[in-house]
């Protein structure tokens, strides 16, 4: 009986925490990432998935949009964009450092704005 109460309490606590923060565990996020080719696609998705809380990543080569599903309780857009910029790809908010950009394979060196 005691245990049931504990479980109920736990569930309540769980719900209230969620209610306060309203942070979606499966939030759909999308933003633009500069890149050119299949190699870029692999690199961008790999960098996004390396961020704890990012569950899936799909970069579309034709339009340059990265579609993510991420747990907002664990991460935020800026953290993800920083991780992507670190491997040399510019995002909406965060630009890559010049030296990171220059480390890219020649075919991956997209035109910088």
């Amino acid at each position: 009986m005691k245990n049931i109460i504990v479980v109920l309490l736990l569930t309540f606590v769980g719900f209230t925490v969620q209610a306060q923060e309203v942070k979606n565990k499966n939030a759909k996020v999308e933003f633009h990432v500069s890149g050119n080719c299949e190699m870029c696609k692999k690199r961008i998705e790999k960098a996004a998935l390396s961020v704890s809380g990012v569950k899936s990543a799909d970069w579309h080569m034709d339009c340059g949009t990265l579609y993510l599903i991420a747990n907002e309780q664990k991460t935020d857009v800026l953290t993800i964009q920083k991780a992507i910029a670190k491997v040399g790809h510019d995002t909406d908010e965060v630009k890559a450092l010049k030296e990171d950009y220059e480390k890219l394979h020649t075919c991956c060196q997209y035109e910088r704005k």
Partner: protein
Amino acid sequence: MQKQISILLLFFFCAFNSFAQDTLQEIKVKGNSKSLKKSYSLTANTTVLTSKELLKAACCNLAESFETNPSIDVNFSDALTGTKQIKMLGLTSPYLMITEENIPSVRGASQAYGLSFTPGTWVESIQITKGAGSVVNGFESISGQINTELIKPISDIPFFLNAYGSTDSRFELNTHFNKKISEKWSSSLFVHGNTRVSKNDMNDDGFLDNPLAKQINVLNRWQYTNAEKGWVSFINFRYMNDQKQTGELNFDPDRDKGTTNYWGSEINTERFDVSTKLGYVFPDMPYQSIGFQNAFNSHDQNSYFGLNKYNIKQKSYYSNLIFNSIINNTKHKFSTGLNFTYDKYGEFVNANDYSRIDNSVGAFFEYTYDNTDDFSVVLGGRIDNHNRLGTFATPRLHVRYNPWEKGVLRFSAGRGKRSANVFAENQQLLASSRTFDFLDTNGKIYGLNPEIAWNYGLSFMQGFLLFGKSADVGFDFYRTDFQNQAVVDVMQSPQQVLFYNLIGKSYANSLQVEFNYELAKHFNLRTAYKYYDIQADYLSGTYQRPLQAKHRFFGNLGYETHILDKGKQWKFDYTFNWLGKQQLPNTSTNPVEDRLPELSPSFSVMNIQVTRTFSSTFEIYIGGENIGNYKQDNVILGNENPFGPTFDASIVYGPVFGQMYYAGLRFKIK
């Protein structure tokens, strides 16, 4: 107790919150320019045959659709059943897991003829996986898996017609109807009929070269799709009736059945299938899904082979519940679930009753790691409880690594276990004067123990450019080690077939070396050399498996012209198969005229097809099989005296009929 419940509840909460994926992992293939797809990024050694590949030969049914593919060897149809058996890694179809839309289809009673019960035109694509397969569908597969995807009602065209006729007097008619009933519901109706109307005896042995046949096969499928909510469902109803008659030319079933006037045989099969599939993809978590499949079928074969009577009825029920999701992110995926199988057999061999009920329940878990780049691994395991095989574990492993661009290295290992349905799988032996003798009596399946084997495989493929055109070269090596096998021994005596548990060693080594090259635009060459060393210790010594060539060579040339306006096009296809010597069953104690050599001669077989597409809706094709007109000598031993001691119609190592030509047409309304 309550504590455990609360922990469990918590666990469930966590699980549902943090995990989240794509549904019934279907490999979708549509109108792609490549007809045979080998992937550099899939973990298992899987080749996908698209519907385009299936058009390269006038494949009448599933068994014949592998003729242009080197991974699978299609045997010659025996004079009796007219059915082509297939082999992978040198092992016959009982050692393969054959599924239709991931539901096990050719098994138990349908083992011998099951592949001929699926018309080729119904097929959308076929996935062939060499070596230990996935644990998701069961524990029985040993040397590989073949999964067939049928045409989906939602992507089907309103009307399709295919008519076919050949010089061995076989005629086929396929009609497909499709209707989109609403935005969410669509339905297809497939009607297939085939018949062989006249008796052929090209080798003048007094026996039909292929059976007279009649088959009617009807499939009605319904598909429900609700993309917004994430639901997909299929419901299939199917009825099949197949009748075959063969034997001596003068055999008249009404007059001669059960007598020794003339030797004859009839095999009549009636089947009924119902299957359902329900898939749900979580809308906000596209990487998480649930699938639930159920299938019921009833199979009823009534047959006699001369004076041998063989009847088998099988009622079976299969159920599979599968949950797919991820751990943290899509680099770590998993599938887990439950299977249930129930088979009720009513089996009668002459006066002996072998009726029984088999059932099994099992749970599986399969974990996939993919670094999204050059490495992936699939590790799977399942635990099953089977009323005859006991409780046992089935581990399977697949690893893929791309050391450099366009290079792929794969490794697989796994265990398989199965009960051999010795009569159903070897029923061609009933067409002989052999007695069936079981030397073991203590096992639970016809006195025999379950078959257990381990399979290991290593493969490498490299794509490159040669003179500016794409080419690939690859090899694969597989070994199957039997811990126990239900040995079918035809090496002891030509008047006997012995069944016993393996004493000593039995293994199958197979090596395939492949080279594929685009000679010019739309002009493709495929070549493969295959080496098989398949040995077992029989009572009378160690032999290569009978009726298996040690060396084989395969070549295929395909040429297509550019598609002109309105879809006008020519397509040419040529397939060459060379088979080395094959070990033959022991006939050394027969009188001289009914003795066969120890090894068969080597020979080659060539097939050719030309397709003329007049528009995107109408095409005709003509073709020839075995145009070199090679015929096996002495197909039916003791044909002078079919009720005598040396009669044997089961030793078929080459084509019986000789050259055969066919023509057909395909018409579509889009």
